[in-house]
């Protein structure tokens, strides 16, 4: 609280992000310990969590006041104009402090209190259980065992305690290998394909330099290939571009020499590093945020940002991985440099292609949890080196979204679920994504001090269900996406999720979702009605009923009441469908630069016509 000097500023203007004529809403800005809140004159609220703020910028003073531009990690961009420079300065300084915390303990998760007791909180953390997950995958078994080598984080600080390695890999081999791998991240199991008895393993780059070898490492890789009873050779996938990997050799790192390892096939897949990805995303956002953007600028910007090229590269790598297992029945070892960003991405996406369990709501949570434990989500929650922040997780979600576009019935969850998860990656409201590895997470006592996101999402599950999901009992139905370039599209609902005017005004998904829900209710109604009718008929045939008895049953039966009320409800989808049209107005869409010639104020007309419209948030 010591950072907050001003808690309330009136007469602040919120500019329309895309308006070329400085259209704005006037309202009051509030600063709380956790949020920045703007309430406009229509009482519409805009909440911005301090942790979501990626950057705050104070622009040069204008005649109408002092502009303050806030960019958020969930891609919201707000542009305020604060009448007095002094207020603007205070808010600016406060936000700078509040948005960048130096200590984990200052993050929202440690103060967030959803009114649950300790046991409820603990239960929440137990929703996702990795031991259960390994059991589901079918390990341990005769080829794979749980290793206690890293139980005390002695071999590798950034790995979890529980690691699965080949049955025949002894501890000295593991220790030896870990010394030959960057940051000690030796090859471990990431996913086991029970049907094919093939494994996806992960590690970091070898410290091979130009010629160094490590017998233990070679043994460990051999052990992995031997753990596959069907195919004795394995793939080693280096997810980096070859040039990057070669440059690493000069620093004593590098990649595996095929000659030194028996039975490996080495392959580069060319995914760029996080620095390239970060600046690519930055470019993408710059382009899509341009006022009065032309179609040509949009597409040339999309091209030069390289973003979709990177998405395609990740997808292609995952497909390569899945094919190695499905077609060749080979195990695959994946690594990049340190083995967290690209490696986690590719392993996760690959297993999602292979195993339909990860396409369910619960399964996806499990996959994300293991992604977190393997260090695949480093989002820079603390004020630190911005160079280590990576959009890898955003990319992973985008790849999944592309899959949902190509396979609309293969996923139990919908786009909203992906967006919600993305929102909380950065919100720091829940403990799930804090800390970079299990050790750090334990030291932070996250399970005691913070809440888990998953039970909250599960509670709201209805919102995240894909109504078109077709449940296939077969666990191993492989997705084979087509990665021809035209199948990749700009993810508008992610990068413009707060720019309502850019989206379709009616959502097919919502309507089908509501209808699905309604169908369930109707089925129940039919049952109720049928049993009531049966009851009636029985009574009529009995014919011995007394009047009192009849009275007590028939007049105000609760089921009938609900079904009558339901009759009104059946009209709801129509209104729901129209709900969003209210956002549709010519003023929002800037068809004309002749706006000034049109004298009437637009919004008043809009709200009149759509008198039925409700507030949406």
């Amino acid at each position, binding site marked *: 609280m010591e950072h907050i000097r001003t808690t309330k500023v009136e007469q602040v203007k919120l500019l329309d992000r*895309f308006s070329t004529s400085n259209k704005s809403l006037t309202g009051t800005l509030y600063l709380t310990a956790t949020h920045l809140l703007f309430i406009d004159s229509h009482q519409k609220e805009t909440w911005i969590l301090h942790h979501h703020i990626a950057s705050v910028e104070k622009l040069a003073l204008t005649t109408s006041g002092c502009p303050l531009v806030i960019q958020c990690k969930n891609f919201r961009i707000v542009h305020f104009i604060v009448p007095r420079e002094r207020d603007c300065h205070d808010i600016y300084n406060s936000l700078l402090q509040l948005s960048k915390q130096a200590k984990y303990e200052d993050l929202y998760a440690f103060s967030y209190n959803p009114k649950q007791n300790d046991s409820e909180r603990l239960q929440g953390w137990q929703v996702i259980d990795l031991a259960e997950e390994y059991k589901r995958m079918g390990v341990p078994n005769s080829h794979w065992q749980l290793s206690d080598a890293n139980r005390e984080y002695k071999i590798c600080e950034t790995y979890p305690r529980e690691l699965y390695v080949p049955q025949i890999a002894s501890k000295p081999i593991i220790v030896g290998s870990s010394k030959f791998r960057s940051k000690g991240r030796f090859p471990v199991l990431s996913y086991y394909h029970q049907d094919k008895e093939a494994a996806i393993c992960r590690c970091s780059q070898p410290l091979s330099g130009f010629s160094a070898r490590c017998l233990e490492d070679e043994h460990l890789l051999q052990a992995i290939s031997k753990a596959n009873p069907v195919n004795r050779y394995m793939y080693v996938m280096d997810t980096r571009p070859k040039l990057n990997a070669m440059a690493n050799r000069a620093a004593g790192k590098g990649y595996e020499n095929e000659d030194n390892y028996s039975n490996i096939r080495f392959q580069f897949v060319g995914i760029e590093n996080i620095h390239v990805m970060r600046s690519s995303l930055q470019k993408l956002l710059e382009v899509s945020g341009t006022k009065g*953007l*032309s*179609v*040509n*600028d*949009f*597409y*040339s910007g*999309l*091209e030069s940002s*390289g973003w*979709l*090229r990177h998405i395609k590269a990740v997808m292609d790598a995952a497909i390569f991985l899945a094919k190695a297992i499905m077609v060749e029945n080979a195990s695959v070892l994946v690594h990049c440099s340190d083995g967290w960003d690209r490696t986690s991405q590719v392993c996760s996406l690959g297993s999602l292609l292979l195993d339909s369990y990860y396409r369910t709501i619960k399964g996806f949570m499990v996959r994300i949890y293991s992604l977190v434990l393997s260090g695949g989500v480093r989002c820079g929650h603390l004020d630190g080196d911005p160079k280590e922040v990576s959009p890898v997780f955003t990319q992973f979600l985008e790849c999944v979204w592309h899959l949902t576009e190509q396979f*609309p*019935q*293969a996923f139990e969850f919908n786009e909203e679920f992906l967006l919600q998860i993305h929102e909380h990656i950065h919100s720091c409201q829940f403990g799930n994504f804090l800390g970079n590895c299990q050790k750090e997470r334990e030291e932070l006592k996250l399970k005691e001090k913070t809440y888990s996101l998953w039970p909250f999402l599960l509670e709201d599950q209805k919102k995240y269900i894909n109504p*078109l999901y077709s449940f296939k009992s077969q666990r191993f139905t492989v997705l084979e996406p*087509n990665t*021809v*370039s*035209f*199948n990749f599209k*700009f993810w*508008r609902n992610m990068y413009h999720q707060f720019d309502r*005017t*850019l*989206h*379709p005004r*009616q959502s*097919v998904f919502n309507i*089908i979702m509501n*209808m699905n829900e309604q169908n369930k209710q*109707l089925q129940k109604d*039919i049952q109720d*009605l049928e049993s009531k*009718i049966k009851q*009636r*008929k029985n*009574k*009529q045939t009995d014919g011995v009923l007394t009047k009192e008895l*009849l009275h007590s049953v*028939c007049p105000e039966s609760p089921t*009938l009441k609900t079904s009558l009320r339901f009759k009104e409800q059946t009209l709801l*989808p129509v209104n729901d*469908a*129209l709900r969003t*049209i209210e956002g*549709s*107005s*010519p003023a*929002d*869409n800037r*068809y004309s630069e*002749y706006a000034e*010639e*049109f004298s*009437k104020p*637009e919004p008043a007309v809009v709200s009149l*016509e759509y008198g039925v419209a409700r507030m949406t948030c």
Partner: protein
Amino acid sequence: QLECALSTLDSITLMYPFFYRPMFEVVEDGWHAFLPEQEFELCSSATSEWRLSYVNKEFAVCPSYPPIVIVPKSIDDEALRKVAMFRHGGRFPVLSYYHKKNGMVIMRSGQPLTGTNGRRCKEDEKLINATLRAGKRGYIIDTRSLNVAQQARAKGGGFEQEAHYPQWRRIHKSIERYHILQESLIKLVEACNEQAHNMDRWLSKLEASNWLTHIKEILTTACLAAQCIDREGASILIHGTEGIDSTLQVTSLAQIILEPRSRTIRGFEALIEREWLQAGHPFQQRCAQSAYCNSKQKWEAPVFLLFLDCVWQILRQFPCSFEFNERFLTMLFEHAYASQFGTFLGNNESERCKLKLQQKTMSLWSWVNRPSELSKLTNPLFEANNLVIWPSVAPQSLQLWEGIFLRWNRTSKYLDEAYEEMVNIIEYNKELQAKVNILRRQLAELETEDGMQESP
């Protein structure tokens, strides 16, 4: 020139529609499904300011107009003849759309033939002003840039001088025509057909085709027109050069935005009949070869396809506001380019009369408007609404029409299955609702029976 025209007519009579023998029973003859008189009734029921004129009965005043047009009541046929002399191709201003909500109208015409010395036509000025209410102003939307419009004066064309039309304000919106559009289509189709393109190349080819730029220009202009009518309460006149291409794109799209009826199957068919076929869009010239022609076709241009694409964009944004689905649009695209039906043959009504299409060929509408066909083209999500629908024209909101351009380049199996599943859910919902209603009635009957037994 006449010879040339006749030879095209001759070759047309050798085309498939003249030999096609339908294997279905005609329920309603599509040639008589959308008569101008009937269409006029929709407007005459609301206002008496307009009348039907038969001045073009013999196609003498304007060869590209139909025999019957709607004009202001106060303007007689003699004046129309004079105005026709002052407008490109004889296309004097006629009514395109009457907005019942506020009585504002969309008119369309050819460019005024002002030439370099600023010719005037009193009757033209009178006609246009006749559509304005006292003290009201109107907008003239010229679908050419100011530059192009100015250049047109050298060839005898031009635009309305504000000095002579003081109650009107001119807005120039540039929409491309002819070979520029055709090249755009060819480039786009080329880009879509090459599967091996890497991401950068695909995106740059997509950009270089300019297709979506054209979509954005057309949609923006249509939205602007609709905005004038519905929000500014101002009538508009739309024209480009000849008034048979971009003009029709704008007038028809503005109606899609403004008028709920034009978003129904029947209303959309009527719109195509009125604003494209009768309004004289030269289908024969524009849709001869589509994207795959090696020789340069001078008159070829995907004007109608662009219109359909724009409708698809609006349909994407308002998926519940249209009675028809994407297949309906795809179907229209196919028939405009190659069809067993006579509907899209010829360049205007005059040619169609000469070809005796009504007698010799089958109308597309006769085939489409049968229940078995309609069921495939109906949007299961349709819920009629009376609102004006304002689409977003931001580049992020516009998409490549995959159903047309990527149709043969990818499998749509999973998308089709998902669509079917969606239809199933909706059908099931209807079924359940019907059942609940029956049961409810049954229960109510039982209850009244019981009540009667009780009362004595």
